[in-house]
Protein backbone atom coordinates (compact mmCIF):
# COMPACT_ATOMS: atom_id res chain seq x y z
CA UNK A 1 0.00 0.00 0.00
CA UNK A 2 1.32 3.37 -1.02
CA UNK A 3 0.43 5.85 1.69
CA UNK A 4 2.58 8.74 0.53
CA UNK A 5 0.18 11.28 -1.08
CA UNK A 6 2.93 12.96 -3.16
CA UNK A 7 4.17 9.81 -4.86
CA UNK A 8 0.63 8.59 -5.49
CA UNK A 9 -0.10 11.94 -7.16
CA UNK A 10 2.89 11.44 -9.41
CA UNK A 11 1.72 7.96 -10.32
CA UNK A 12 -1.76 9.28 -11.17
CA UNK A 13 -0.21 11.94 -13.39
CA UNK A 14 1.79 9.35 -15.30
CA UNK A 15 -1.28 7.18 -15.84
CA UNK A 16 -3.28 10.21 -17.01
CA UNK A 17 -0.60 11.25 -19.52
CA UNK A 18 -0.32 7.71 -20.92
CA UNK A 19 -4.09 7.52 -21.28
CA UNK A 20 -4.24 10.87 -23.08
CA UNK A 21 -1.47 9.85 -25.48
CA UNK A 22 -3.21 6.55 -26.27
CA UNK A 23 -6.58 8.28 -26.77
CA UNK A 24 -5.00 10.91 -29.02
CA UNK A 25 -3.34 8.21 -31.12
CA UNK A 26 -6.65 6.33 -31.42
CA UNK A 27 -8.48 9.54 -32.32
CA UNK A 28 -5.87 10.34 -34.97
CA UNK A 29 -6.32 6.85 -36.46
CA UNK A 30 -10.10 7.20 -36.35
CA UNK A 31 -9.99 10.57 -38.13
CA UNK A 32 -7.57 9.47 -40.84
CA UNK A 33 -9.20 6.17 -41.76
CA UNK A 34 -10.70 6.18 -45.28
CA UNK A 35 -14.48 6.64 -45.39
CA UNK A 36 -16.82 3.96 -46.69
CA UNK A 37 -17.13 5.36 -50.23
CA UNK A 38 -13.37 5.56 -50.72
CA UNK A 39 -12.73 2.03 -49.51
CA UNK A 40 -15.67 0.65 -51.52
CA UNK A 41 -14.22 2.25 -54.67
CA UNK A 42 -11.03 0.21 -54.27
CA UNK A 43 -12.85 -3.13 -54.63
CA UNK A 44 -12.28 -5.16 -57.78
CA UNK A 45 -14.87 -4.13 -60.36
CA UNK A 46 -14.44 -7.35 -62.36
CA UNK A 47 -15.44 -9.39 -59.34
CA UNK A 48 -18.52 -7.24 -58.79
CA UNK A 49 -19.50 -7.50 -62.47
CA UNK A 50 -18.94 -11.27 -62.60
CA UNK A 51 -20.96 -11.82 -59.46
CA UNK A 52 -24.02 -9.96 -60.73
CA UNK A 53 -26.97 -10.70 -58.47
CA UNK A 54 -24.82 -13.08 -56.41
CA UNK A 55 -22.73 -10.18 -55.13
CA UNK A 56 -22.38 -9.84 -51.37
CA UNK A 57 -20.62 -7.12 -49.46
CA UNK A 58 -19.59 -7.06 -45.81
CA UNK A 59 -18.53 -3.81 -44.19
CA UNK A 60 -17.40 -3.36 -40.62
CA UNK A 61 -16.24 -0.24 -38.83
CA UNK A 62 -13.93 -0.79 -35.86
CA UNK A 63 -13.54 2.92 -34.95
CA UNK A 64 -9.77 3.06 -35.61
CA UNK A 65 -9.93 1.09 -38.84
CA UNK A 66 -12.52 -0.41 -41.16
CA UNK A 67 -12.73 -3.46 -43.36
CA UNK A 68 -14.72 -4.31 -46.47
CA UNK A 69 -15.16 -7.63 -48.25
CA UNK A 70 -16.68 -8.19 -51.65
CA UNK A 71 -17.77 -11.74 -52.38
CA UNK A 72 -18.97 -13.54 -55.47
CA UNK A 73 -21.28 -16.17 -53.99
CA UNK A 74 -21.11 -18.25 -57.19
CA UNK A 75 -17.38 -18.87 -57.03
CA UNK A 76 -16.76 -17.98 -53.36
CA UNK A 77 -14.09 -15.55 -54.63
CA UNK A 78 -13.44 -12.59 -52.33
CA UNK A 79 -11.68 -9.24 -52.38
CA UNK A 80 -10.93 -7.67 -49.01
CA UNK A 81 -9.49 -4.32 -47.99
CA UNK A 82 -8.56 -2.95 -44.59
CA UNK A 83 -8.64 0.84 -44.32
CA UNK A 84 -6.26 2.34 -41.78
CA UNK A 85 -4.60 5.76 -41.49
CA UNK A 86 -5.53 6.90 -45.00
CA UNK A 87 -4.39 3.61 -46.60
CA UNK A 88 -6.37 0.82 -48.18
CA UNK A 89 -4.50 -2.43 -47.55
CA UNK A 90 -5.44 -5.38 -49.75
CA UNK A 91 -5.60 -8.58 -47.70
CA UNK A 92 -6.27 -11.31 -50.26
CA UNK A 93 -3.34 -13.65 -49.79
CA UNK A 94 -1.38 -15.57 -47.20
CA UNK A 95 -1.33 -14.55 -43.59
CA UNK A 96 -3.05 -11.25 -44.34
CA UNK A 97 -6.03 -13.16 -45.73
CA UNK A 98 -6.34 -15.11 -42.48
CA UNK A 99 -6.08 -11.88 -40.53
CA UNK A 100 -8.79 -10.33 -42.72
CA UNK A 101 -11.01 -13.38 -42.12
CA UNK A 102 -10.55 -13.13 -38.36
CA UNK A 103 -11.44 -9.41 -38.41
CA UNK A 104 -14.55 -10.12 -40.52
CA UNK A 105 -15.64 -12.79 -38.00
CA UNK A 106 -15.15 -10.64 -34.90
CA UNK A 107 -18.59 -8.92 -34.82
CA UNK A 108 -20.39 -12.29 -35.04
CA UNK A 109 -18.09 -13.79 -32.41
CA UNK A 110 -18.69 -10.83 -30.10
CA UNK A 111 -22.46 -11.22 -30.44
CA UNK A 112 -22.02 -14.88 -29.49
CA UNK A 113 -19.75 -13.91 -26.59
CA UNK A 114 -22.44 -11.46 -25.44
CA UNK A 115 -24.99 -14.28 -25.20
CA UNK A 116 -22.48 -16.50 -23.39
CA UNK A 117 -21.58 -13.81 -20.84
CA UNK A 118 -25.18 -12.74 -20.21
CA UNK A 119 -26.29 -16.33 -19.74
CA UNK A 120 -23.41 -17.17 -17.40
CA UNK A 121 -23.81 -14.05 -15.26
CA UNK A 122 -27.58 -14.30 -15.05
CA UNK A 123 -27.54 -18.03 -14.29
CA UNK A 124 -24.84 -17.91 -11.61
CA UNK A 125 -26.35 -14.83 -9.93
CA UNK A 126 -29.83 -16.39 -9.84
CA UNK A 127 -28.24 -19.67 -8.79
CA UNK A 128 -26.44 -17.95 -5.89
CA UNK A 129 -29.65 -16.41 -4.58
CA UNK A 130 -31.42 -19.76 -4.84
CA UNK A 131 -28.49 -21.56 -3.25
CA UNK A 132 -28.56 -19.50 -0.05
CA UNK A 133 -32.02 -20.90 0.71
CA UNK A 134 -31.02 -24.39 -0.39
CA UNK A 135 -27.89 -24.36 1.77
CA UNK A 136 -29.74 -23.09 4.85
CA UNK A 137 -32.42 -25.70 4.11
CA UNK A 138 -29.89 -28.46 3.92
CA UNK A 139 -28.33 -27.61 7.29
CA UNK A 140 -31.77 -26.99 8.80
CA UNK A 141 -33.01 -29.39 11.47
CA UNK A 142 -36.59 -29.21 10.20
CA UNK A 143 -37.01 -32.61 8.50
CA UNK A 144 -39.27 -31.76 5.46
CA UNK A 145 -37.18 -28.72 4.51
CA UNK A 146 -33.95 -30.64 4.92
CA UNK A 147 -35.27 -33.58 2.86
CA UNK A 148 -36.55 -31.34 0.05
CA UNK A 149 -33.32 -29.37 -0.26
CA UNK A 150 -31.16 -32.51 -0.16
CA UNK A 151 -33.28 -34.13 -2.86
CA UNK A 152 -33.11 -31.01 -5.02
CA UNK A 153 -29.32 -30.86 -4.78
CA UNK A 154 -29.03 -34.60 -5.39
CA UNK A 155 -31.14 -34.35 -8.54
CA UNK A 156 -29.53 -31.30 -10.12
CA UNK A 157 -25.95 -32.29 -9.30
CA UNK A 158 -26.53 -35.89 -10.21
CA UNK A 159 -27.98 -35.56 -13.71
CA UNK A 160 -26.31 -34.04 -16.77
CA UNK A 161 -26.92 -30.36 -17.43
CA UNK A 162 -27.36 -31.20 -21.11
CA UNK A 163 -30.35 -33.40 -20.28
CA UNK A 164 -31.82 -30.81 -17.91
CA UNK A 165 -31.58 -28.17 -20.64
CA UNK A 166 -33.08 -30.49 -23.22
CA UNK A 167 -35.89 -31.40 -20.86
CA UNK A 168 -36.74 -27.79 -19.97
CA UNK A 169 -36.86 -26.76 -23.63
CA UNK A 170 -38.27 -29.81 -25.42
CA UNK A 171 -39.65 -32.00 -22.66
CA UNK A 172 -41.84 -29.64 -20.62
CA UNK A 173 -44.09 -28.57 -23.54
CA UNK A 174 -44.79 -32.24 -24.23
CA UNK A 175 -45.89 -32.81 -20.64
CA UNK A 176 -48.25 -29.88 -20.80
CA UNK A 177 -48.38 -27.09 -23.39
CA UNK A 178 -48.78 -24.59 -20.54
CA UNK A 179 -45.17 -25.30 -19.46
CA UNK A 180 -43.76 -24.29 -22.85
CA UNK A 181 -40.90 -21.82 -22.50
CA UNK A 182 -40.59 -20.51 -26.00
CA UNK A 183 -37.75 -18.08 -25.49
CA UNK A 184 -34.49 -20.00 -25.93
CA UNK A 185 -32.50 -17.69 -23.71
CA UNK A 186 -35.10 -17.91 -20.96
CA UNK A 187 -35.19 -21.72 -21.19
CA UNK A 188 -31.39 -21.88 -20.99
CA UNK A 189 -31.40 -19.40 -18.10
CA UNK A 190 -33.92 -21.48 -16.13
CA UNK A 191 -32.09 -24.77 -16.66
CA UNK A 192 -28.68 -23.27 -15.91
CA UNK A 193 -29.72 -21.36 -12.81
CA UNK A 194 -31.55 -24.36 -11.33
CA UNK A 195 -28.40 -26.40 -11.91
CA UNK A 196 -26.04 -23.71 -10.68
CA UNK A 197 -28.20 -23.31 -7.56
CA UNK A 198 -27.48 -26.92 -6.59
CA UNK A 199 -23.72 -26.53 -7.00
CA UNK A 200 -23.58 -23.18 -5.22
CA UNK A 201 -25.70 -24.56 -2.36
CA UNK A 202 -22.98 -27.10 -1.62
CA UNK A 203 -20.33 -24.37 -1.79
CA UNK A 204 -22.26 -22.22 0.67
CA UNK A 205 -23.03 -25.13 2.99
CA UNK A 206 -19.36 -26.06 3.06
CA UNK A 207 -18.37 -22.43 3.76
CA UNK A 208 -20.87 -22.11 6.62
CA UNK A 209 -19.92 -25.43 8.16
CA UNK A 210 -16.23 -24.59 7.91
CA UNK A 211 -16.73 -21.91 10.59
CA UNK A 212 -15.76 -23.42 13.94
CA UNK A 213 -18.63 -24.82 16.02
CA UNK A 214 -17.32 -22.85 19.00
CA UNK A 215 -18.54 -19.64 17.43
CA UNK A 216 -22.13 -20.91 17.40
CA UNK A 217 -21.78 -21.87 21.07
CA UNK A 218 -20.19 -18.52 21.95
CA UNK A 219 -23.02 -16.64 20.18
CA UNK A 220 -25.71 -18.56 21.98
CA UNK A 221 -23.94 -17.90 25.29
CA UNK A 222 -24.00 -14.19 24.38
CA UNK A 223 -27.75 -14.50 23.87
CA UNK A 224 -27.85 -14.14 20.09
CA UNK A 225 -30.67 -15.87 18.23
CA UNK A 226 -30.00 -18.31 15.33
CA UNK A 227 -30.75 -15.72 12.68
CA UNK A 228 -28.61 -13.10 14.42
CA UNK A 229 -25.74 -15.58 14.69
CA UNK A 230 -26.00 -16.36 11.00
CA UNK A 231 -26.38 -12.77 9.86
CA UNK A 232 -23.81 -11.12 12.12
CA UNK A 233 -21.20 -13.78 12.82
CA UNK A 234 -21.18 -16.73 10.50
CA UNK A 235 -22.12 -15.43 7.03
CA UNK A 236 -19.66 -12.49 6.97
CA UNK A 237 -16.82 -14.90 7.71
CA UNK A 238 -17.95 -17.53 5.24
CA UNK A 239 -18.18 -15.08 2.34
CA UNK A 240 -14.41 -14.88 2.06
CA UNK A 241 -14.21 -18.67 2.02
CA UNK A 242 -16.81 -19.13 -0.67
CA UNK A 243 -15.40 -16.65 -3.17
CA UNK A 244 -12.78 -19.00 -4.71
CA UNK A 245 -15.19 -21.89 -5.30
CA UNK A 246 -17.85 -19.50 -6.65
CA UNK A 247 -15.28 -18.13 -9.08
CA UNK A 248 -14.65 -21.71 -10.08
CA UNK A 249 -18.38 -22.28 -10.60
CA UNK A 250 -18.51 -19.15 -12.75
CA UNK A 251 -15.77 -20.38 -15.04
CA UNK A 252 -17.31 -23.85 -15.25
CA UNK A 253 -20.66 -22.32 -16.16
CA UNK A 254 -19.03 -20.10 -18.79
CA UNK A 255 -17.87 -23.21 -20.60
CA UNK A 256 -21.03 -25.24 -19.89
CA UNK A 257 -22.91 -22.43 -21.65
CA UNK A 258 -21.67 -23.96 -24.90
CA UNK A 259 -24.29 -26.71 -24.39
CA UNK A 260 -27.00 -24.31 -25.59
CA UNK A 261 -26.22 -25.17 -29.20
CA UNK A 262 -28.60 -28.11 -28.65
CA UNK A 263 -31.50 -25.65 -28.55
CA UNK A 264 -30.08 -23.53 -31.38
CA UNK A 265 -29.17 -20.57 -29.19
CA UNK A 266 -26.31 -18.73 -30.87
CA UNK A 267 -23.68 -18.56 -28.13
CA UNK A 268 -19.96 -18.17 -28.79
CA UNK A 269 -19.40 -21.89 -29.42
CA UNK A 270 -22.39 -22.18 -31.74
CA UNK A 271 -21.29 -19.13 -33.75
CA UNK A 272 -17.76 -20.52 -33.95
CA UNK A 273 -18.99 -23.87 -35.20
CA UNK A 274 -21.20 -22.33 -37.85
CA UNK A 275 -18.42 -20.03 -39.08
CA UNK A 276 -16.11 -23.03 -39.12
CA UNK A 277 -18.53 -25.03 -41.25
CA UNK A 278 -19.28 -22.21 -43.67
CA UNK A 279 -15.60 -21.29 -44.12
CA UNK A 280 -14.55 -24.97 -44.06
CA UNK A 281 -11.61 -24.15 -41.84
CA UNK A 282 -10.92 -24.39 -38.13
CA UNK A 283 -8.97 -21.12 -37.95
CA UNK A 284 -11.98 -19.44 -36.30
CA UNK A 285 -11.43 -21.61 -33.20
CA UNK A 286 -8.29 -19.59 -32.41
CA UNK A 287 -9.96 -16.15 -31.98
CA UNK A 288 -12.92 -17.87 -30.29
CA UNK A 289 -10.70 -19.53 -27.69
CA UNK A 290 -8.87 -16.25 -27.14
CA UNK A 291 -12.23 -14.58 -26.43
CA UNK A 292 -13.05 -17.34 -23.91
CA UNK A 293 -9.67 -16.79 -22.24
CA UNK A 294 -10.24 -13.01 -22.10
CA UNK A 295 -13.64 -13.51 -20.43
CA UNK A 296 -12.14 -15.97 -17.95
CA UNK A 297 -9.26 -13.57 -17.24
CA UNK A 298 -11.74 -10.76 -16.57
CA UNK A 299 -13.78 -12.92 -14.15
CA UNK A 300 -10.61 -14.15 -12.42
CA UNK A 301 -9.49 -10.55 -11.93
CA UNK A 302 -12.85 -9.44 -10.53
CA UNK A 303 -13.03 -12.37 -8.11
CA UNK A 304 -9.40 -11.78 -7.06
CA UNK A 305 -10.37 -8.21 -6.13
CA UNK A 306 -13.47 -9.40 -4.25
CA UNK A 307 -11.41 -11.93 -2.33
CA UNK A 308 -8.98 -9.22 -1.22
CA UNK A 309 -11.84 -6.96 -0.19
CA UNK A 310 -13.53 -9.60 1.97
CA UNK A 311 -10.26 -10.70 3.56
CA UNK A 312 -10.62 -7.91 6.15
CA UNK A 313 -12.44 -10.37 8.40
CA UNK A 314 -9.38 -12.56 8.69
Amino acid at each position, binding site marked *: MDRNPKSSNKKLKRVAITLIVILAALAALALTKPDRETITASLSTTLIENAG*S*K*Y*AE*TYNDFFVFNIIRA*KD*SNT*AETDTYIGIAGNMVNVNTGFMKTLGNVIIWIPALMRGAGVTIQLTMAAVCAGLVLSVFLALGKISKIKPINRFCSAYIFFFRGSPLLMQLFFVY*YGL*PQLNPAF*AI*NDKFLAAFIAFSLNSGAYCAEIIRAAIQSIEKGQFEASSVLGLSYSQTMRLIIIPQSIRRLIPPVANEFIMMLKDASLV*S*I*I*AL*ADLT*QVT*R*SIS*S*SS*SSVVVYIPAMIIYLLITALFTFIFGRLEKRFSVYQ
Partner: protein
Amino acid sequence: MKKLMKLATAAACFALVLSIAAGCSATASGSASNIGLLTDGVLKVGCEIGYPPFELYDDDGTTPIGLDVELGKAIAKELGLTTQLEDTAWDGIFAGLDVDKYDCIISAVTIDAERREKMDFTQPYIENWQAIVVKTGTPAVTSMKGLDGLSVGYQDATTSDDYLAELIETGEVACKVNEYDKVLNCFDDLRLNRINAVLCDSTVANGYLSREPGVFEITWIQSDEPGAVAEVFGIAVKKGNTKLLDALNGALRKLEESGELDNIRKNWL
Protein backbone atom coordinates in the same frame (compact mmCIF):
# COMPACT_ATOMS: atom_id res chain seq x y z
CA MET B 1 35.40 -69.60 -41.47
CA LYS B 2 34.69 -66.20 -39.93
CA LYS B 3 34.08 -64.79 -43.35
CA LEU B 4 31.67 -67.58 -44.11
CA MET B 5 29.80 -66.89 -40.86
CA LYS B 6 29.50 -63.23 -41.80
CA LEU B 7 28.20 -64.09 -45.22
CA ALA B 8 25.70 -66.50 -43.76
CA THR B 9 24.46 -63.87 -41.29
CA ALA B 10 24.15 -61.30 -44.05
CA ALA B 11 22.25 -63.78 -46.18
CA ALA B 12 19.97 -64.64 -43.26
CA CYS B 13 19.30 -60.93 -42.63
CA PHE B 14 18.56 -60.37 -46.28
CA ALA B 15 16.17 -63.30 -46.33
CA LEU B 16 14.45 -62.00 -43.20
CA VAL B 17 14.00 -58.54 -44.71
CA LEU B 18 12.63 -60.07 -47.89
CA SER B 19 10.19 -62.25 -46.03
CA ILE B 20 8.97 -59.28 -43.93
CA ALA B 21 8.52 -57.20 -47.08
CA ALA B 22 6.68 -60.06 -48.73
CA GLY B 23 4.56 -60.48 -45.63
CA CYS B 24 3.71 -56.78 -45.66
CA SER B 25 2.65 -56.74 -49.26
CA ALA B 26 0.64 -59.89 -48.65
CA THR B 27 -1.27 -58.40 -45.71
CA ALA B 28 -1.76 -55.13 -47.58
CA SER B 29 -3.45 -56.81 -50.51
CA GLY B 30 -5.27 -59.18 -48.17
CA SER B 31 -6.87 -56.61 -45.90
CA ALA B 32 -7.90 -54.44 -48.80
CA SER B 33 -9.66 -57.46 -50.30
CA ASN B 34 -9.14 -55.66 -53.60
CA ILE B 35 -11.88 -53.11 -53.02
CA GLY B 36 -10.04 -50.77 -50.66
CA LEU B 37 -11.78 -51.55 -47.35
CA LEU B 38 -10.39 -50.73 -43.92
CA THR B 39 -11.28 -54.16 -42.50
CA ASP B 40 -11.65 -57.28 -44.54
CA GLY B 41 -15.24 -58.24 -45.25
CA VAL B 42 -16.80 -55.29 -43.42
CA LEU B 43 -18.21 -52.15 -44.99
CA LYS B 44 -17.91 -49.45 -42.35
CA VAL B 45 -20.54 -46.80 -43.04
CA GLY B 46 -20.45 -43.36 -41.43
CA CYS B 47 -23.79 -41.68 -40.91
CA GLU B 48 -25.50 -39.15 -38.70
CA ILE B 49 -28.41 -41.08 -37.25
CA GLY B 50 -31.21 -38.63 -36.60
CA TYR B 51 -32.12 -37.48 -40.10
CA PRO B 52 -35.43 -39.10 -40.99
CA PRO B 53 -36.33 -40.71 -43.32
CA PHE B 54 -32.72 -41.42 -44.29
CA GLU B 55 -31.30 -42.54 -40.97
CA LEU B 56 -33.02 -42.66 -37.64
CA TYR B 57 -33.33 -44.92 -34.65
CA ASP B 58 -36.33 -47.19 -34.40
CA ASP B 59 -38.65 -46.82 -31.41
CA ASP B 60 -36.35 -49.04 -29.32
CA GLY B 61 -33.70 -46.35 -29.60
CA THR B 62 -30.93 -48.73 -30.69
CA THR B 63 -31.85 -50.13 -34.11
CA PRO B 64 -30.88 -47.81 -36.95
CA ILE B 65 -33.43 -47.74 -39.74
CA GLY B 66 -34.04 -45.58 -42.77
CA LEU B 67 -33.39 -45.35 -46.47
CA ASP B 68 -29.61 -44.99 -46.19
CA VAL B 69 -29.37 -47.81 -43.66
CA GLU B 70 -31.27 -50.15 -45.99
CA LEU B 71 -29.25 -49.00 -48.97
CA GLY B 72 -26.01 -49.69 -47.09
CA LYS B 73 -27.17 -53.20 -46.24
CA ALA B 74 -28.30 -53.87 -49.81
CA ILE B 75 -24.95 -52.72 -51.21
CA ALA B 76 -23.02 -54.80 -48.70
CA LYS B 77 -25.11 -57.85 -49.58
CA GLU B 78 -24.40 -57.26 -53.24
CA LEU B 79 -20.66 -57.15 -52.51
CA GLY B 80 -20.75 -60.08 -50.08
CA LEU B 81 -19.85 -57.94 -47.06
CA THR B 82 -21.36 -57.18 -43.68
CA THR B 83 -22.15 -53.60 -42.67
CA GLN B 84 -21.03 -51.75 -39.59
CA LEU B 85 -22.75 -48.42 -38.96
CA GLU B 86 -20.71 -45.68 -37.28
CA ASP B 87 -23.03 -43.05 -35.82
CA THR B 88 -21.28 -39.70 -36.14
CA ALA B 89 -22.21 -36.10 -35.48
CA TRP B 90 -22.84 -34.27 -38.75
CA ASP B 91 -20.34 -31.69 -37.60
CA GLY B 92 -17.11 -33.44 -38.53
CA ILE B 93 -18.59 -36.37 -40.48
CA PHE B 94 -16.34 -35.58 -43.46
CA ALA B 95 -13.23 -35.29 -41.31
CA GLY B 96 -13.93 -38.85 -40.10
CA LEU B 97 -13.58 -40.11 -43.68
CA ASP B 98 -10.12 -38.57 -43.97
CA VAL B 99 -8.87 -40.19 -40.78
CA ASP B 100 -10.20 -43.65 -41.76
CA LYS B 101 -12.98 -43.93 -39.20
CA TYR B 102 -15.17 -45.51 -41.88
CA ASP B 103 -14.99 -46.59 -45.52
CA CYS B 104 -17.77 -44.44 -46.86
CA ILE B 105 -20.52 -42.03 -45.84
CA ILE B 106 -24.12 -42.92 -46.68
CA SER B 107 -25.90 -40.10 -44.89
CA ALA B 108 -27.96 -38.07 -47.32
CA VAL B 109 -24.82 -36.31 -48.54
CA THR B 110 -25.55 -33.81 -51.30
CA ILE B 111 -22.96 -33.82 -54.06
CA ASP B 112 -21.67 -30.30 -54.61
CA ALA B 113 -18.57 -28.79 -56.17
CA GLU B 114 -16.94 -27.91 -52.86
CA ARG B 115 -17.37 -31.41 -51.45
CA ARG B 116 -16.23 -32.98 -54.74
CA GLU B 117 -12.85 -31.35 -54.23
CA LYS B 118 -12.37 -33.06 -50.88
CA MET B 119 -13.82 -36.52 -51.54
CA ASP B 120 -15.10 -38.80 -54.28
CA PHE B 121 -18.77 -39.54 -54.87
CA THR B 122 -20.60 -42.47 -56.40
CA GLN B 123 -23.40 -41.99 -58.91
CA PRO B 124 -26.38 -40.23 -57.31
CA TYR B 125 -29.02 -42.43 -55.72
CA ILE B 126 -31.65 -39.81 -55.02
CA GLU B 127 -32.86 -36.41 -56.21
CA ASN B 128 -33.68 -33.69 -53.78
CA TRP B 129 -34.79 -30.06 -53.63
CA GLN B 130 -34.84 -27.39 -50.95
CA ALA B 131 -38.29 -27.01 -49.42
CA ILE B 132 -40.04 -24.68 -47.00
CA VAL B 133 -42.27 -26.37 -44.44
CA VAL B 134 -44.78 -24.57 -42.21
CA LYS B 135 -47.28 -25.81 -39.68
CA THR B 136 -50.74 -26.44 -41.10
CA GLY B 137 -53.01 -23.49 -40.43
CA THR B 138 -50.24 -20.87 -40.33
CA PRO B 139 -49.66 -18.48 -43.25
CA ALA B 140 -48.08 -20.25 -46.23
CA VAL B 141 -44.62 -19.12 -47.31
CA THR B 142 -44.62 -19.46 -51.07
CA SER B 143 -41.14 -18.17 -51.92
CA MET B 144 -37.76 -17.73 -50.28
CA LYS B 145 -38.49 -13.98 -50.29
CA GLY B 146 -41.57 -14.79 -48.23
CA LEU B 147 -39.29 -15.75 -45.33
CA ASP B 148 -38.54 -12.04 -44.77
CA GLY B 149 -39.04 -11.13 -41.14
CA LEU B 150 -39.89 -14.70 -40.09
CA SER B 151 -38.04 -16.99 -37.74
CA VAL B 152 -36.58 -19.84 -39.80
CA GLY B 153 -35.04 -23.11 -38.63
CA TYR B 154 -32.54 -25.34 -40.42
CA GLN B 155 -29.78 -27.80 -39.62
CA ASP B 156 -26.28 -26.41 -39.23
CA ALA B 157 -23.78 -27.07 -42.05
CA THR B 158 -26.30 -28.59 -44.47
CA THR B 159 -27.11 -27.49 -48.01
CA SER B 160 -30.17 -25.72 -46.56
CA ASP B 161 -27.79 -23.70 -44.38
CA ASP B 162 -25.60 -22.83 -47.40
CA TYR B 163 -28.62 -21.99 -49.57
CA LEU B 164 -30.15 -19.62 -47.02
CA ALA B 165 -26.81 -18.15 -45.93
CA GLU B 166 -26.08 -17.13 -49.51
CA LEU B 167 -29.47 -15.43 -49.92
CA ILE B 168 -28.97 -13.58 -46.63
CA GLU B 169 -25.45 -12.57 -47.57
CA THR B 170 -26.52 -11.13 -50.92
CA GLY B 171 -29.35 -9.31 -49.17
CA GLU B 172 -32.19 -11.15 -50.95
CA VAL B 173 -33.74 -12.51 -47.77
CA ALA B 174 -33.83 -10.97 -44.30
CA CYS B 175 -35.04 -13.48 -41.71
CA LYS B 176 -34.19 -14.56 -38.19
CA VAL B 177 -32.10 -17.74 -38.33
CA ASN B 178 -32.13 -20.67 -35.90
CA GLU B 179 -29.35 -23.20 -36.41
CA TYR B 180 -30.06 -26.66 -35.00
CA ASP B 181 -27.73 -29.61 -34.52
CA LYS B 182 -30.45 -32.00 -35.68
CA VAL B 183 -33.23 -31.53 -38.21
CA LEU B 184 -35.53 -33.33 -35.73
CA ASN B 185 -35.30 -30.34 -33.39
CA CYS B 186 -36.28 -27.94 -36.19
CA PHE B 187 -39.55 -29.82 -36.52
CA ASP B 188 -39.97 -30.02 -32.72
CA ASP B 189 -39.82 -26.24 -32.55
CA LEU B 190 -42.05 -25.78 -35.60
CA ARG B 191 -44.64 -28.04 -33.94
CA LEU B 192 -44.54 -25.79 -30.84
CA ASN B 193 -44.84 -22.61 -32.98
CA ARG B 194 -41.43 -21.43 -31.76
CA ILE B 195 -40.33 -20.84 -35.34
CA ASN B 196 -42.41 -19.92 -38.38
CA ALA B 197 -40.83 -22.15 -40.99
CA VAL B 198 -38.25 -24.89 -41.57
CA LEU B 199 -35.98 -24.96 -44.59
CA CYS B 200 -34.87 -28.52 -45.35
CA ASP B 201 -34.49 -31.20 -48.00
CA SER B 202 -37.75 -31.99 -49.81
CA THR B 203 -37.12 -35.69 -49.12
CA VAL B 204 -36.91 -35.02 -45.40
CA ALA B 205 -40.02 -32.80 -45.53
CA ASN B 206 -41.96 -35.51 -47.39
CA GLY B 207 -40.90 -38.03 -44.77
CA TYR B 208 -42.38 -35.84 -42.02
CA LEU B 209 -45.55 -35.15 -43.99
CA SER B 210 -46.19 -38.84 -44.54
CA ARG B 211 -45.44 -39.89 -40.96
CA GLU B 212 -47.50 -37.11 -39.35
CA PRO B 213 -50.24 -36.28 -41.84
CA GLY B 214 -51.99 -32.96 -41.40
CA VAL B 215 -49.44 -31.40 -39.03
CA PHE B 216 -47.06 -29.81 -41.52
CA GLU B 217 -47.26 -28.67 -45.11
CA ILE B 218 -44.74 -27.90 -47.81
CA THR B 219 -45.56 -24.45 -49.19
CA TRP B 220 -42.58 -23.93 -51.47
CA ILE B 221 -40.29 -26.30 -53.28
CA GLN B 222 -37.19 -25.29 -55.20
CA SER B 223 -38.19 -27.31 -58.27
CA ASP B 224 -40.94 -24.73 -58.96
CA GLU B 225 -38.32 -22.06 -59.52
CA PRO B 226 -37.32 -21.53 -63.17
CA GLY B 227 -33.86 -22.91 -63.91
CA ALA B 228 -33.43 -24.67 -60.59
CA VAL B 229 -31.05 -27.62 -60.54
CA ALA B 230 -31.81 -30.63 -58.36
CA GLU B 231 -29.48 -31.57 -55.55
CA VAL B 232 -28.44 -35.19 -55.72
CA PHE B 233 -27.32 -37.48 -52.93
CA GLY B 234 -24.33 -39.75 -53.37
CA ILE B 235 -22.13 -42.04 -51.31
CA ALA B 236 -18.88 -40.35 -50.32
CA VAL B 237 -15.57 -42.22 -50.22
CA LYS B 238 -12.08 -41.02 -49.38
CA LYS B 239 -10.45 -39.06 -52.20
CA GLY B 240 -8.49 -41.43 -54.43
CA ASN B 241 -10.04 -44.71 -53.21
CA THR B 242 -11.09 -45.69 -56.74
CA LYS B 243 -11.32 -49.41 -55.96
CA LEU B 244 -14.08 -48.88 -53.41
CA LEU B 245 -15.73 -46.24 -55.58
CA ASP B 246 -15.94 -48.66 -58.52
CA ALA B 247 -17.26 -51.46 -56.31
CA LEU B 248 -19.97 -49.21 -54.81
CA ASN B 249 -20.95 -47.87 -58.23
CA GLY B 250 -21.18 -51.42 -59.54
CA ALA B 251 -23.43 -52.43 -56.66
CA LEU B 252 -25.62 -49.34 -57.11
CA ARG B 253 -26.05 -50.12 -60.80
CA LYS B 254 -27.08 -53.70 -60.02
CA LEU B 255 -29.59 -52.52 -57.41
CA GLU B 256 -30.97 -50.03 -59.92
CA GLU B 257 -31.37 -52.73 -62.58
CA SER B 258 -33.00 -55.24 -60.25
CA GLY B 259 -35.46 -52.57 -59.08
CA GLU B 260 -34.39 -52.97 -55.47
CA LEU B 261 -33.22 -49.35 -55.24
CA ASP B 262 -36.68 -48.25 -56.36
CA ASN B 263 -38.26 -50.44 -53.71
CA ILE B 264 -36.07 -48.92 -51.01
CA ARG B 265 -36.97 -45.40 -52.18
CA LYS B 266 -40.68 -46.24 -52.24
CA ASN B 267 -40.46 -47.71 -48.75
CA TRP B 268 -39.23 -44.49 -47.22
CA LEU B 269 -40.38 -41.57 -49.35
